[in-house]
C-alpha cells in the first residue's frame, strides 16, 4: 500500500526465507569473510572471461538461496535480477540457467534494494510466491567496461572506489521464518552535476539523502526508530558528505547507527580499495550476508538499507554528461523477539 509520496508499506510483511552471498578472493581477505556462503580464490572462477565468472557467481548465489530455503528451482515463481554489465547479461544468463520467469532490472549499484522492493511488492500484493531477487558485480568486468583494462597503468585518485566481486540473492514468500520486509521507498533520480567517474561517492550522496528524507517524511518516522541505517556504497567520501548533508538539513542520523556497506566490506589493511567498496555486489553481499546474520541473531531489530546507484554509462561520460544517481530504501525487521 502506498504511503506518502513514494513509499510502499507492506501490510503483509513478506518474509525473507533465505539469502546467499558469494564472493571473490579480495572479499575473502576482508572483515566480513565469515558472512559469505561461498568464497572463490580465483577471480575467473575457472571461466573463460570475467563476464562469465560474474554470471556464475550470481547463479551460485541464487541456487544457494533456493537450497537454503529448502526449495527447488521449480518452486520459484519470479526472479528479479540486475547487474552492471551492458544489457545486464549476468542476470539474463543466470535467469536462463534458473529457468524462472524473469524481470531484468537496472539500477546500477542500487539494484539490490530495487530488486528487494519489487520482490516484496509482488509477494505482499499476492501477485506471486517464492520470489527470488539477486544482483552481482565483478571488479575486473566492471573496470573493463566502465574504466580501463585491468592491467592498464592508470593512477586512481583517492576518491575512487573498488568494485566488489560478489553476488547476493534473497528469497521471499508470504510467511516464513525470517526477517520481514516492512516498507520500501523508491528514489528519484538526483543529479548534482558531478561528472567525475572516479568520484561516485560525491555523485551519489545527494540521492541517498533525498531518499532517506523522503522515507522519514512519508512514514513519519525518525532515524532513532532504526538500529542501523546503511547506505549501499557511498564509500568514505560519499558517507561523509551524506552524513554532513543530513546534519545540515535535518534529519540528522546519529553516527553510531549510520554506516555504509562500502566501508564495512573491506578492512584498513586493504588500501587498494581507496575510498571503499562499490558495485551491486557491495550492498547485496553486506546486507544479504552480514546484516541478515545480525538480524537473524536478534542483534539488530529494525534496519533501513539505502542502496545507491550512479546511472552513468561510459558513453554518457564521454559526451560530457554529468552523473545522475538514485537511491532506493528498504526497511527490514527481525522476527526475533
Amino acid at each position, binding site marked *: 500500500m502506498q504511503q506518502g509520496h513514494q513509499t510502499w508499506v507492506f501490510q503483509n510483511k513478506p518474509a525473507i526465507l533465505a539469502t546467499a552471498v558469494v564472493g571473490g578472493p579480495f572479499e575473502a581477505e576482508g572483515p566480513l569473510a565469515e558472512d559469505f556462503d561461498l568464497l572463490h580464490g580465483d577471480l575467473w572462477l575457472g571461466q573463460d572471461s570475467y563476464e562469465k565468472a560474474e554470471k556464475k557467481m550470481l547463479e551460485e548465489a541464487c541456487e544457494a538461496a533456493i537450497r537454503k530455503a529448502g526449495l527447488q528451482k521449480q518452486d520459484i515463481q519470479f526472479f528479479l535480477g540486475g547487474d552492471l554489465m551492458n544489457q545486464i547479461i549476468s542476470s539474463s544468463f543466470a535467469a536462463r540457467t534458473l529457468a524462472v520467469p524473469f524481470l531484468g532490472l537496472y539500477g546500477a549499484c542500487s539494484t539490490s534494494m530495487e530488486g528487494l522492493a519489487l520482490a516484496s511488492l509482488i509477494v505482499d500484493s499476492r501477485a506471486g510466491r517464492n520470489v527470488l531477487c539477486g544482483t552481482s558485480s565483478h571488479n575486473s568486468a566492471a573496470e573493463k567496461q566502465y574504466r580501463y583494462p585491468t*592491467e592498464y597503468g592508470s*593512477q586512481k*585518485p583517492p576518491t575512487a572506489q573498488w568494485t566488489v566481486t560478489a553476488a547476493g540473492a534473497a528469497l521471499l514468500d508470504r510467511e516464513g521464518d525470517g526477517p520481514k520486509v516492512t516498507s520500501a521507498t523508491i528514489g528519484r533520480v538526483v543529479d548534482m552535476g558531478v561528472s567525475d567517474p572516479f568520484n561516485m561517492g560525491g555523485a551519489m550522496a545527494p540521492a541517498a539523502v533525498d531518499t532517506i528524507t523522503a522515507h522519514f517524511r512519508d512514514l513519519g518516522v525518525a532515524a532513532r526508530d532504526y538500529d542501523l541505517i546503511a547506505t549501499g556504497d557511498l564509500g568514505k567520501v560519499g558517507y561523509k558528505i551524506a552524513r554532513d548533508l543530513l546534519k545540515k538539513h535535518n534529519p540528522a542520523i546519529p553516527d553510531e547507527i549510520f554506516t555504509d556497506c562500502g566501508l564495512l566490506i573491506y578492512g584498513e589493511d586493504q588500501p587498494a580499495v581507496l575510498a571503499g567498496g562499490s558495485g551491486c555486489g557491495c550492498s547485496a553481499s553486506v546486507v544479504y550476508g552480514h546484516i541478515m546474520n545480525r538480524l537473524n541473531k536478534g542483534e539488530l531489530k529494525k534496519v533501513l538499507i539505502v542502496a545507491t546507484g550512479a546511472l552513468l554509462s561510459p558513453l554518457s561520460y564521454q559526451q560530457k554528461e554529468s552523473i545522475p544517481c538514485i537511491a532506493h530504501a528498504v526497511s527490514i525487521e527481525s522476527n526475533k523477539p
Partner: protein
Amino acid sequence: MSDKKRKKLTPVQQEYQTFARAREPGRPVLFNCLKAFLVGGGICFLGQGVQDFFLWNFDFTEKTAGDPTVAVMVLLAVILTVAGVYDHIAQWAGAGTAVPVTGFANSMAASAMEHRTEGFVLGVGGKMFKLAGSVIVFGVFAAFIIGLLKTGIAMLGGF
C-alpha cells in the same frame, strides 16, 4: 577545464559541489609530482643506458640507436604488464610510468590482453588501440599541420 563545467550548473548544484569538494580527500599533487619525477627520470635513465648499449656494441649511430632503444623499452613495459605489476607501479608513479613510451606500450598490451575474450580478430585486433589510438591520431595530425605550415612558410619566402 573543471571550472568551465561548473559555470553551467544551477546555484544549488554549485553549492553542493563546493560542499562536497570540502569533504573530499585532495590529490597529493606535490607528492605525486615527486613520484612521477623519480620514476619517469629513472625510466629515461634506463633508456639512456639501453641506447649506449646499442651504440657501443652494435653498428648504430646516435640517430639510428633510437629505434632499438624504444623497442627494448616497449618490451620491458609489456613484460611488466604481463606479469601483472605494471598497474601497481603505475598507481604509485602516475605520470612517471604513463608519459614515457612504456605507458604507450602498456596501454596496448593491456587492451590486447583484456579483449582476448572477444576473440583475436575483433577483440585483440580491434581493441588493441583503444587507449593508444588518440596518441597516434593526434600525433600524426599535428605533424601534418605543422609540416604544412612550415613547408608553406618556407615556400612563401622563409622564416
